[in-house]
């Protein structure tokens, strides 16, 4: 292949290294209004009275809105396809506030300063209500967060259950009764935040035809368009959503988190509007990862083969239910995919609490689901005296296997069958063992104050949501033999513009420079569900491939007409006749546009799939534990991934290299903390501490090739899978280092000391 698998410079790289004005906020709009939100200081309350008079009287304040200015309409902020599998439990501005930071009043002013001052002048009278902060106390609590009359799509509102999933395959109880060994463990993961360096930022204005235009850093332009139109009861045709360059998202921007507010101001005032989240707001009033407390039981036979896996999930959705059902569905679906146990069951509940609202965050339930699973598997290996890698090799999926859970459990609806048509997980383990120094480090380094150990964890993900995700592409040819590639597929800095250009270039047999990419503009590019669920390479890429091949067919067909012979073939950007005459792409297109057999050569294609093949990953961690302080240092992470055919090696590596510190953050230094009143404790980068350049362990990133027949050029997804298991790998390494078994993230150094009987237990 000429372009696939080659390290290609990003098509958007130049403007990024030059710092050009390409992000949402990099423009000035005349008469723009700045929005600020007055947020609830209480975790649970009813708004009794709002006095906006002092705010309205401040010079420069143009509009102040409360729940009284909007109809009582409920929607979901989740950027998902219609009909969204999330509860419609959110109002544009709330009267019943359900978490610290909930939106009460919207202020629009001539400057940010004035808007900030105005927000402080608003007086709200609240009736404070008792609150629920412990998800284990949510179900059947007499405090009810969402009453059934208001909202829809909530599993059991009276019991505070936002979502419920219960599925099984085989005969689970029987398998546990007959098992040689039964192992069980309970594990928990915390609230962590996506922390894209660009916060949520969005602008809106009315164009020359009074159509609403929204320019927003989003993963889901088409969902934004639909949901904003719904909230404001205007037809979709009156709204245009444009995604500029986005400064990172990681799921946080798979959400309608303010576009409806700027739209409200623009529609009501006729003026452009801007809303940007402060870093503080990002850290408590945006979205985050759903905490889960999960119990796993695994039935093991005398040969160490898993016969049954039972998974119970208690997921904390926070105050609203965006993504609640689907995240835990993914937790179960992916965690229950990787091992071949014939009997599997999941019972999962997502509950409401008066805490941070969780949403989509890279991995989308898999990091939580695999966390406990991979620690328990490690505990089983330890108890049975089997090497943890060997135990996994005995039990993980093999080529040709069916994945029984996939058929019964989709995302919010029934799933579709999956068969493993590509897998190099075994090679991932081989490579990883070697690179981390497994044999040596498992045994050595256990003396002294600082103890060293290694651990492993494996994982699988998917490629898009089977039967749901769809992407579409328009491709048109230009007279110099170049092509405009117009697609809905949404580049967040993930490099999809480049990867899609590579697929088109490979199919059309031209260099990547001949593909001009424009993406994610609901007026100009066709539909795409958006950048989530690791769907871009597999689904959007599938559409690009189809469109490119279709265009190539037309090029050939035109060439035959222009060369007046059927004996023509395409070779390296030209049409070559059997008698040696040739015509370049440019010549073919110029004639086709202007002089002979005129037609616009173009490809139009959509792609969806009932398949969602599994990428695989093995992550190894080398850690040191200071047994006097309990502090853990991660020395080295080796991440080996099976993504089928790697489309662009540095870009694929980049995905892994960024995902690993996010997972390490969950294990070591990141933890959104609320105080006893539900108020956020750490709302800046000092205390909510993400990895910096001086914190990084040594990183070794490798790919074990395989070929996925259903993926474009054999490719599978890479965007999410590398975030799934660095955290449990670290925890397993800690156990190897010093014999302390951690079962929750973030790791508490004090707990490690107590596990070592330093400090008394």
């Amino acid at each position, binding site marked *: 292949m000429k372009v696939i698998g080659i390290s290609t410079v990003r098509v958007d790289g130049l403007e990024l290294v030059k*710092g050009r004005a390409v992000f949402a906020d990099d423009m*000035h709009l005349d008469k723009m209004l700045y929005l600020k939100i007055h947020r609830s200081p209480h975790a649970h309350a009813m708004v009794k009275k709002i006095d906006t008079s002092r705010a309205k009287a401040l010079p420069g304040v143009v509009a102040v809105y409360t729940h009284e200015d909007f109809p009582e309409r409920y929607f979901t902020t989740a950027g998902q396809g219609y009909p969204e599998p999330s509860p419609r439990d959110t109002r544009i501005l709330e009267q019943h506030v359900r978490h610290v930071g909930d939106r009460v009043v919207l202020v629009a002013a001539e400057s940010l300063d004035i808007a900030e001052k105005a927000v402080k002048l608003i007086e709200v009278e609240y009736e404070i209500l008792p609150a629920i902060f412990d998800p284990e106390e949510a179900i059947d609590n007499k405090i009810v967060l969402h009453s059934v009359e208001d909202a829809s799509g909530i599993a059991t509102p009276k019991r505070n259950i936002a979502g419920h999933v219960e599925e099984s395959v085989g005969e689970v109880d029987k398998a546990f009764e007959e098992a040689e060994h039964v192992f069980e463990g309970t594990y928990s993961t915390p609230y962590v935040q996506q922390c894209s360096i660009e916060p949520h930022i969005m602008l809106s204005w009315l164009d020359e035809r009074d159509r609403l235009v929204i320019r927003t850093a989003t993963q889901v332009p088409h969902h934004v368009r639909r949901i904003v139109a719904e909230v404001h009861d205007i037809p979709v045709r009156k709204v245009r959503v444009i995604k500029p360059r986005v400064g990172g998202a990681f799921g946080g921007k798979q959400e309608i988190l303010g576009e409806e507010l700027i739209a409200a101001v623009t529609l009501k005032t006729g003026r452009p509007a801007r809303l940007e989240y402060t870093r503080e707001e990002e850290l408590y009033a945006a979205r985050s990862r759903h905490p889960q407390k999960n119990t796993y039981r695994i039935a093991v036979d005398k040969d160490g083969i898993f016969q049954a896996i039972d998974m119970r999930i208690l997921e904390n959705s926070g105050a609203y239910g965006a993504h609640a059902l689907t995240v835990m569905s993914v937790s179960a679906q992916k965690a229950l995919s990787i091992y071949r146990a014939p009997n599997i069951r999941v019972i999962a509940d997502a509950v409401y609490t008066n805490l941070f609202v969780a949403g989509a965050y890279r991995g989308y339930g898999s990091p939580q689901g695999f966390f406990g699973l991979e620690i328990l598997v490690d505990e089983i290996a330890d108890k049975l005296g089997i090497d943890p890698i060997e135990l996994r090799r005995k039990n993980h999926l093999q080529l040709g296997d069916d994945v029984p859970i996939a058929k019964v459990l989709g995302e919010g609806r029934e799933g579709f069958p999956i068969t493993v048509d590509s897998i190099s997980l075994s090679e991932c383990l081989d490579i990883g063992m070697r690179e981390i120094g497994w044999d040596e480090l498992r045994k050595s380094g256990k003396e002294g104050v600082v103890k060293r150990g290694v651990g492993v964890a494996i994982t699988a993900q998917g490629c898009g949501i089977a039967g749901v995700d769809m992407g579409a592409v328009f491709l048109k040819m230009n007279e110099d033999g170049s092509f405009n590639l117009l697609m809905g597929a949404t580049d967040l800095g993930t490099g999809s513009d480049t990867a899609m250009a590579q697929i088109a270039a490979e199919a059309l047999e031209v260099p990547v420079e001949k593909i001009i990419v424009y993406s994610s503009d609901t007026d100009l590019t066709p539909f795409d569900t958006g950048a989530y669920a690791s769907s871009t390479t597999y689904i959007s890429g599938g559409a690009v491939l189809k469109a490119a091949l279709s265009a190539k067919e037309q090029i050939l067909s035109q060439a035959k007409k222009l060369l007046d012979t059927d004996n023509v073939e395409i070779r390296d950007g030209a049409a070559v006749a059997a008698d040696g005459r040739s015509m370049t792409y440019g010549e073919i297109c110029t004639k086709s546009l202007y002089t002979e057999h005129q037609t616009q050569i173009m490809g139009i294609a959509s792609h969806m799939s009932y398949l969602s093949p599994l990428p695989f990953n093995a992550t190894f961690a080398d850690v040191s534990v200071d047994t006097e302080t309990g502090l853990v240092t991660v020395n080295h992470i080796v991440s080996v991934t099976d993504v089928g055919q790697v489309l662009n090696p540095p870009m694929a590596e980049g995905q892994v290299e960024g995902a690993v510190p996010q997972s390490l953050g969950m294990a070591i230094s990141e933890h959104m903390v609320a105080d006893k009143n539900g108020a956020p404790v750490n709302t800046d*980068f000092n205390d909510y501490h993400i990895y910096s350049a001086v914190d990084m362990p040594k990183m070794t990133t490798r790919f074990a090739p395989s070929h996925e027949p259903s993926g474009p050029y054999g490719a599978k997804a890479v965007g999410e899978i590398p975030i799934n298991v660095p955290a449990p790998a670290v925890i397993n390494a800690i156990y190897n280092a010093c014999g302390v078994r951690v079962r929750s993230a973030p790791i508490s150094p004090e707990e490690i000391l107590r596990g070592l009987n330093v400090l008394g237990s």
Partner: protein
Amino acid sequence: MVEFLLNGEPLKVDVEPGTTLLEFLRERGLFSVKHGCDHGECGACSVLMDDLAVNSCLLLVNSLDGRRIETLEGLEGDKTLAKLQQEFLDTGAVQCGYCTPGMLIALTALLRQNSNPSEEQIRDALAGVLCRCTGYVKPVEAALKVSVRGGNR
């Protein structure tokens, strides 16, 4: 009234007392300087002041008398920056690009002071620029490539 040099241009401005350099620069259309946090923790707002990398979000315009400020826009043609930019592209060190100007400013400042920095010195220079996409792996790799070349001169 305060007088300072901005990208080589002498300025004489009178601004509201609380105006930060970040706000001022973006008002003037110098969008390479970005807003990422509110307290000088993320470094996305980094600029050069008298050849040193500083957070423009923490500088008050009225305190800049006599200073020389440079942003990426004004460094067009700077050889050190150009090498870094090319290496960032070739090595795949740019993903979303939001922290890229901050990293380039921090590295340009470092290389102006020391044309052959070690990996440790590069990481130290980058410690004040937060990135969520790259794990700093390829940015450090790219900077090291430029460093080695600098040392060979």
